[in-house]
């Protein structure tokens, strides 16, 4: 078991100035890791919220600092924005008495596949994967986030295991689009898991409309309602819609796994 009482862990999220739920999973994972007492200090930092990336290193006192991006994929944020804002120059950066260790984003971890399968099974209890089309929903993008590539990689891995009758990656901004599921998915059951780090406007509003489970992007009285009304009957199938993969409590373990992976690669 990982034990780092003299180290600090900084979990970096994107955050949002408009969506109150964006930072929630990042805080939840930090709270969970705190409870386990693995690190001397556990803090979060955000690009769009506080504490900011420019502030966060002032909030920890340990000289040994691990930084784990709570991002789905390697891209503009993990390669450019976070290093620049934290002023880290590589995998290991020495600053004054401090050693800052920049770990891989959570989405890169091999266990992500297991988490997606866990979430898919949880949202559709008692439904046979053999009669299910699994949809992994990604943003897919102009944003240089490689989120499309990350989804495609997961789809390949899950397909290779052969548990589900079919597995597709569908996207908001590239083909195949989320709306295309009716054309490509052939099974009586559909399980849709958004490969996002948090639930936001996409998972509460945009995706439900694209899937056809909501008529309009209206804010439900309780946002979580959208996940409680499973299964939906759409186009003659039963559709189970999961909340974003990043809300999965096992993400805390993946964050710790990325720290362990860093240590084994760079001999802590």
């Amino acid at each position: 078991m990982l034990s780092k009482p003299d180290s600090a862990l900084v979990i970096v999220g994107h955050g949002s100035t408009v969506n109150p739920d964006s930072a929630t999973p990042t805080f939840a994972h930090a709270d969970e890791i705190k409870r386990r007492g693995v690190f001397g200090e556990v803090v979060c930092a955000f690009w769009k919220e506080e504490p900011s990336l420019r502030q966060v290193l002032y909030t920890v006192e340990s000289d040994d600092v691990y930084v784990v991006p709570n991002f789905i994929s390697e891209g503009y944020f993990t390669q450019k924005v976070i290093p620049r804002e934290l002023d880290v120059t590589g995998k290991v950066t020495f600053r004054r008495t401090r050693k800052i260790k920049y770990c891989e984003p959570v989405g890169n971890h091999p266990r992500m596949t297991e988490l997606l399968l866990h979430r898919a099974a949880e949202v559709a209890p008692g439904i046979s994967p053999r009669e299910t089309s699994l949809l992994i929903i990604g943003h897919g993008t102009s944003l240089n986030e490689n989120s499309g590539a990350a989804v495609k990689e997961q789809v390949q891995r899950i397909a290779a295991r052969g548990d589900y009758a079919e597995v597709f990656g569908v996207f908001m901004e590239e083909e195949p689009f989320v709306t295309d599921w009716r054309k490509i998915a052939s099974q009586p059951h559909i399980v849709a898991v958004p490969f996002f780090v948090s639930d936001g406007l996409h998972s509460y509003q945009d995706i439900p409309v694209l899937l056809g489970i909501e008529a309009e992007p209206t804010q439900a009285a309780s946002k979580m309602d959208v996940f409680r009304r499973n299964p939906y009957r759409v186009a003659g199938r039963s559709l189970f819609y999961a909340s974003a993969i990043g809300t999965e409590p096992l993400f805390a373990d993946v964050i710790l796994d990325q720290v362990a992976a860093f240590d084994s690669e760079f001999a802590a």
Partner: protein
Amino acid sequence: MTKTHSQIETLLAALLQRGVNRIGEILIRGEFELLHHADADRSDLQFFNNPEDAREIAKYDESGNFRPLKTAPNLRCGWKLVLRDLHELREALDCFYPAMPGVLFAHECSALEVVDLRETLNRQTGMYAVTKKISNKQANELIAGFCRSDNGCLKTILWRIDANTPVTSLPPCKFDPAANQLGQSVLAIPLLCHEACNLLVAAARNKVKSE
């Protein structure tokens, strides 16, 4: 695994001992009861006793709007948070006013690196790269509206526009860590802005694009 003698916690304890028991809109009473300063005489406050509750209290303003900037002067009233020790106090303050205890500690140790606005804007890439184009005059106008303590932000600004250009559109007290940004005479633990926040950068983008 509580670090009992964190230097940041020690600083907070020293400030409280000197009677500095206000931070932003919060009043700290005894060991340790936190409440909105405007609620000092109320007895009908909702009770909380977990430092993480502070995050929820600070999340929305009185009308239920999300508060992306936690130092905006719109912390809601009606709650009382009772904490067991200095460590919990520090955790709660880090939820109410993220990073502020640590930034203050760095400032006290002369380890806080203040970054002028130009440097922050020149560093931006992607959609914020355009903020480099803001003129000093536009910057002053923007800061006057966005950072003002009465309805913008309660932080004390430490940065300048650039090395030779101070911000001139806000009163001198906005730049004085000893001044209580609520305009009250009681001493307060300062909330320090050592570098323009992302919200100001985003607002600078809008300013440049709209003019």
